[in-house]
């Protein structure tokens, strides 16, 4: 247990902060994903054919291509793309994109593809009669969406959002290939310098299990809270 001591002698504090980093990346990624999902789900539900196509293209590509490949695209291509945009605005120099942002974006785009399907499914499962009812009551379309559809949709989507969160949390381990010091990267460093990979990778597994367990509890509570009255 000396290996996990807090402070200079052990890896306890490093692993603790690495765990916080994992949570931070996963949280950033899922929110980026929600943002994208709100856009692409509305594309997929739209009556305009071309928007449908764009929405389907997004979800097909990012659910069908391995996460690692997407991460490599953003890791190697990220600074190139940012520099290209900067050049248009007249800045001509080297820009390095932060590893956290690279990770959050690449995982966020993947997570968004899963969330899109979740949001779309939830909206579709809401009873169509409500639309007519709100029309009869004279609600504007905007109010209909914000006050009637979205609150119900979130409740219906919650169990699946929980799944997406678990996937996203586990996918963050892949960001370790870009050098961002989260649980996997920190375990890799510790395993390398102590020559005890078995212990550190097993401990990483325990940390992930702890995180997934904790989030499952949290989501179960949320589900209970939001389904009161049903």
């Amino acid at each position, binding site marked *: 247990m000396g290996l996990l001591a807090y402070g200079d002698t052990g890896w306890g504090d490093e692993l603790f902060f690495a765990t916080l980093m994992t949570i931070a990346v996963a949280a950033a990624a899922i929110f980026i994903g929600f943002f994208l999902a709100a856009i692409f789900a509305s594309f997929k539900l739209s009556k305009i054919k071309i928007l449908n196509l764009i929405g389907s293209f997004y979800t*097909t*590509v990012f659910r*069908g*291509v*391995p*996460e*690692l*490949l*997407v991460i*490599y*695209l953003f*890791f*190697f*291509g990220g600074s*190139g793309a940012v520099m290209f945009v900067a050049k248009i605005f007249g800045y001509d120099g080297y820009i390095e994109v932060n590893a956290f942002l690279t990770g959050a974006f690449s995982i966020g785009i993947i997570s968004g593809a899963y969330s899109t399907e979740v949001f779309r499914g939830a909206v579709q499962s809401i009873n169509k009669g409500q639309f007519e009812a709100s029309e009869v009551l004279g609600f504007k379309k905007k109010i209909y969406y914000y006050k009637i559809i979205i609150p119900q949709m979130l409740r219906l989507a919650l169990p699946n959002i929980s799944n997406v969160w*678990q996937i996203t949390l*586990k*996918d963050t*381990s*892949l960001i*370790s*290939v870009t050098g961002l010091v989260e649980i*996997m990267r920190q*375990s*890799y460093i510790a*395993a390398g310098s102590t020559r*005890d*990979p*078995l212990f550190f*990778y*097993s401990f*990483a*597994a325990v940390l*992930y*299990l702890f995180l*997934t*367990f904790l989030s499952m509890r949290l989501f179960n509570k949320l589900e209970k809270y939001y389904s009161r009255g049903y």
Partner: protein
Amino acid sequence: MDINFALEHFPRLLKATKLTIELTLLSLFFGIFVGVFFAILRTSKNKILFFIAYYYSYILRGTPLLVQIFIIYFGLAQIEWIRESFLWIFLKEPYSCAILAFTLNTGAYTSEIFRSAFETINKGIVEAANGLGLSKLNTFFKIKLPIAIRQSLPAYGNEMILMLKGTSLASTVTLLDLTGVAKHIISTTFRPVEVFIIAGSIYLIMTFVVHNFIKFLERRYDYN
């Protein structure tokens, strides 16, 4: 997109696809046995067997595949009796370590799929089989198993696609599968977009084939 660049690197990526397919098929094949085994344990009335199966699937589904492959490839090499046993012939090779990790992982998901398929079988059908005097073995193989396989087709199709994507992690233990070669080309030529498009398309074609194969089976064995 530069056509010459694409043509130059396409054969290498296509060759690497062979390894990706190989890893996927072998892991799925072994994974089915692991899955059925643990699914049967889950229905067992013996508490210990039940808990083993329960925690097996809980742990393997609750941790990233990357951790699992690292524990097997880097971690097990540390245990002395493993290095001295015959297992070492397999466990020193990244190839067999990758297949072992993928098999155990997909086995956990598969066991959940089969378990829920068995649980949703209509009780009346089993009672009818009993009433007709079918033996337990016959009821299992002729009645329950075919229904469960048909029930689990859609979910298992998803799992096949997840495994296909999962084999990309083989590149983290030095194997040159499609993602491994793609990464190598990206890091030597610094043209991530082109390589992503080519390698990504190959993956998409494979998921498309799997998807349609499962759809075909679903239609073929539709009993409604």
